[in-house]
């Protein structure tokens, strides 16, 4: 496993840019040595807690706060002295040395859809505005390989589809959605026998040729190329990553048999096979949106999340991939300190917590601080652009890179640098 020193030097490389590395590698005699030194391209797994998990009841507990705020859960100690988290994350607590708790997330949108969009894309959704790409699409574009048969971006579980699209980066970077990991991907097998499918696909190519030649439309070429890539995926060995039945029963149990646990397992398999970005959604439907019965529901969802993410981190570490795989745990916002009469908590965007794990970060630390009630950030506020710029930097992506968008005069940077951007340097 790389030492902290090699991690540092990788990041230094990442900032000088890929071109330098490419230039050195291009020099043949030193190729072998160079290949050995080059750190692997990173991958990212986003564990998306749909609905907005309560920070007060997961990773920013306030045992000193009054009854109506504190809630029912007790803090427990973790593998890092001085860091405490909810009692419903006992397995993850033992892995705290790999993680950083970002307790000072402070954002502006408190509507589910708008907040999910903002957190995924770094831009607020506006009527008639630009369709911004989500983080997964950005990673696919920046780190994905054209010749790789799987899509570089996979979404597992139901989630906010509007928040995860590729926007102006176009069809090549759309996520492959896996609605139910137990069932695997849909539509990977033909409805007919393989032979019949190959025959009809060959027939299609011949028929299509005359239309393409006569009309020379870019759209026709794009359609043919999408078909080609899809058929390549249907025939690729790598698609076995979607098939969880290839895992031993014991492993499947260890992740938890629910959708989220199995999604984490599939995410691990996908990253192992070379997929760059996997999003796993926890909480179908209402999920973490606990306007009522916050405690029983947050408790149950936490237990499921704990099991899945702990197994994932363990396995990534075992296989030596944890340093090259950034795992993020987050939702669209946190929840209000004040407990409602129905035992729930309402939306709260001003102060909440996200978690970064692995990916070569400096683990075992807490970043930022909220006040006594976890209502306001009192130290080191982290905005959406701060967060995304940090994630990009950790993955070796230049977040200032500008994209040209059809019909838009101004170039659009990956992260909106017209705003003040403070990369969380403590993580690097």
């Amino acid at each position, binding site marked *: 496993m790389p030492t902290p020193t090699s991690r540092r030097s990788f990041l230094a490389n990442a900032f000088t840019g890929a071109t330098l590395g490419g230039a050195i590698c291009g020099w043949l005699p030193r190729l072998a040595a160079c290949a050995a030194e080059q750190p692997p391209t990173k991958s990212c797994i986003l564990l998306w807690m749909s609905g907005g998990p309560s920070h007060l009841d997961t990773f920013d507990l306030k045992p000193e706060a009054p009854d109506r705020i504190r809630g029912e859960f007790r803090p427990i100690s973790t593998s890092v002295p001085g860091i405490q988290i909810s009692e419903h994350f006992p397995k993850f607590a033992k892995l705290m040395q790999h993680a950083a708790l970002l307790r000072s997330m402070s954002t*502006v949108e408190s*509507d589910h*859809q*708008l907040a999910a969009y903002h957190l995924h894309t770094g831009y607020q*959704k*506006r*009527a*008639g*505005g630009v*369709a911004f790409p989500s983080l997964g699409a950005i990673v696919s574009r920046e780190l994905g390989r054209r010749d790789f048969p799987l*899509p570089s971006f996979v979404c597992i579980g139901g989630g906010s589809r*509007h928040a995860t*699209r*590729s*926007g102006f980066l*176009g*069809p*090549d*970077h*759309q*996520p*492959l*959605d896996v609605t*139910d990991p137990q*069932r695997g991907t*849909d*539509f*990977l097998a*033909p*409805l*007919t026998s393989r032979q*019949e499918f190959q*025959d*009809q696909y060959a*027939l*299609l190519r*011949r*028929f*299509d040729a*005359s*239309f*393409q030649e*006569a*009309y*020379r*439309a*870019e*759209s*026709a070429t*794009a*359609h*043919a190329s*999408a*078909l080609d*890539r*899809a058929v390549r*995926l*249907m025939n690729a060995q790598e698609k076995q990553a979607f098939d969880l039945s290839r895992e031993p029963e014991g492993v499947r149990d260890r992740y938890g048999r629910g959708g989220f646990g199995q999604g984490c397992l599939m995410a691990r398999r996908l990253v192992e096979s070379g997929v760059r970005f996997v999003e796993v959604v926890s909480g179908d439907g209402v999920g973490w949106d606990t306007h009522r019965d916050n405690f029983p529901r947050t408790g149950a969802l936490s237990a499921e999340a704990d099991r899945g993410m702990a197994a994932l981190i363990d396995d990534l570490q075992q296989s030596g991939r944890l340093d090259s795989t950034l795992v993020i745990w987050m939702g669209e916002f946190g929840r209000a300190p004040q407990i409602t009469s129905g035992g729930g908590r309402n939306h709260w965007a001003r102060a909440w917590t996200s978690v970064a794990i692995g990916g070569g970060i400096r683990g075992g630390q807490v970043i930022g601080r909220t006040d006594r009630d976890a209502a306001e950030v009192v130290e080191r506020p982290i905005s959406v652009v701060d967060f995304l710029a940090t994630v990009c930097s950790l993955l070796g992506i230049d977040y200032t890179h500008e994209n040209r968008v059809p*019909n838009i*005069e101004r170039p659009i940077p990956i992260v909106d640098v017209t705003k003040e951007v403070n990369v969380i340097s403590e993580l690097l």
Partner: protein
Amino acid sequence: MWRNLVAAALLIHVSISASQADEAADLSELIDRSIQSRLDADGLQRAPQADDAEFLRRVTLDVHGVVPSAESAAQFLDSPDPQKRFRYVDKLLASPRFGEHFGDVWRSYLISPLANEQRMQTDRFADWMAARFNRNDGWDEIAYDLLTAVGKMDENPAVTYLIEGRNPLGVTDLTDLSSRYFLGVRLNCAQCHDHPFVAWKQEDYWGMAAFFSQIQTPGRPKLVHVAGVQDDPRMTLTSLKEADMLEGFQPQPPTFLGGQAWEAEARTTHRAALARWITAPENPYFARAMVNRMWWHFFGRGIVNPVDDMHAGNEPSHAELLESLSRRFAESGFDLKLLCRAIVNSRTYQQTSRPGDRADAEAEQFARMSVKVLTPPQLYDSLIAIVGPPAKSPGINTRLGARHEFCQFFAAADDPDPLRYEQGIPHVLRLMNSPQFLGRNLDALVSRATADANSSDETIDELFLAVLSRRPTADERRLARDHLKTADARHTGYRQLAWTLLMSSEFMLNH
């Protein structure tokens, strides 16, 4: 004015009067003349006319949003009537499907894709628009009613626009949407800063926004679904609850775009004043915005591009044409069927989309038609027309309705470019391999095609007519015959052929 137009519209819609047909023919000529004179100046050749099959499929998709049936395709192609294109257009415009299609299209413009939980309500909204389009109410009247709607969504579907307009943010979104769709201008950049390339200033934006400030927004925005929309005359921009949260907020008195301040009148709401100004025949933006958008709908590109970004620095490709069409559209009482009829009967619309030597220039100058991509609703409705209603498919959750789910799944980003293909691997995998349309449905299609056929050639013809609205070329027929010889079983061979046609670029596009 709008009340008079209601009365007038009721009389007009019954049949196409001779004078209306004449006016349409006159406008078609105007279009062709303007396009031709620019082509002459640039030394570009017009493309030949589209053949009957190309025209038939194109005009049916553009006006009805669906491909023609095999029967009507055969009938049209075989008809010797020299006037058949005119007659077919008359039929399309008289059918209720005309309004339904444009109602659906305008729903996609005006209603937020985020509003998916309100699908029933947006269906009602689309129906409401459809009824107005089918009655051929003037566009000024429809726009006026949208802008001034009050009440609850289930009582007055028009109010859906004010509630579910692109984002649930209220005033700023309504300002953006109304400017883009009714005036053809993008003010949204001016919300936070003076536009660098355009005359719009921040004060223009907030001056327009002020007209929407009287819409009451209850403490929690979601309650507007229950309470409906009412105006509170005491409210101004500064009394908005969320004012401090709005980017670039600047309190301005209600001011019409261009700087004309509004003199408050008793018993006139801000919105009514705005709607009256927008829809007035002398408004410099309103008619142009709709003419350019309709042109964009039919040609895949506007006379001004982007379609809703009209400003002094963004020259139209055919300024005089846009001017005259807009004037005549306003003079006609904003008659949408007239505008559609004039466009689709023009020679310019009926050119082939096959490119010549200078493919891009030809498309930009309208010397040929552009190849558009089927929109998700067009694709869905066409699949149903060809293979029948969708079958249940694992992995496809149709709880909110199969059409809704399909359109959401295949939807591109907001405001898609009609010429740009946006589908990726997940989408084509689903098209190729889901049983939703191409499982048993395909067997049924093949059975129908073979049932009445006396020969394999007739079945091949039937499949081509059903899917591509045309008969095969000699080469294609040979290819199909050869394939049938190698296929294990007749039925399998035909099914593979049908699958092939449904997956072809020609089917996915509107050429």
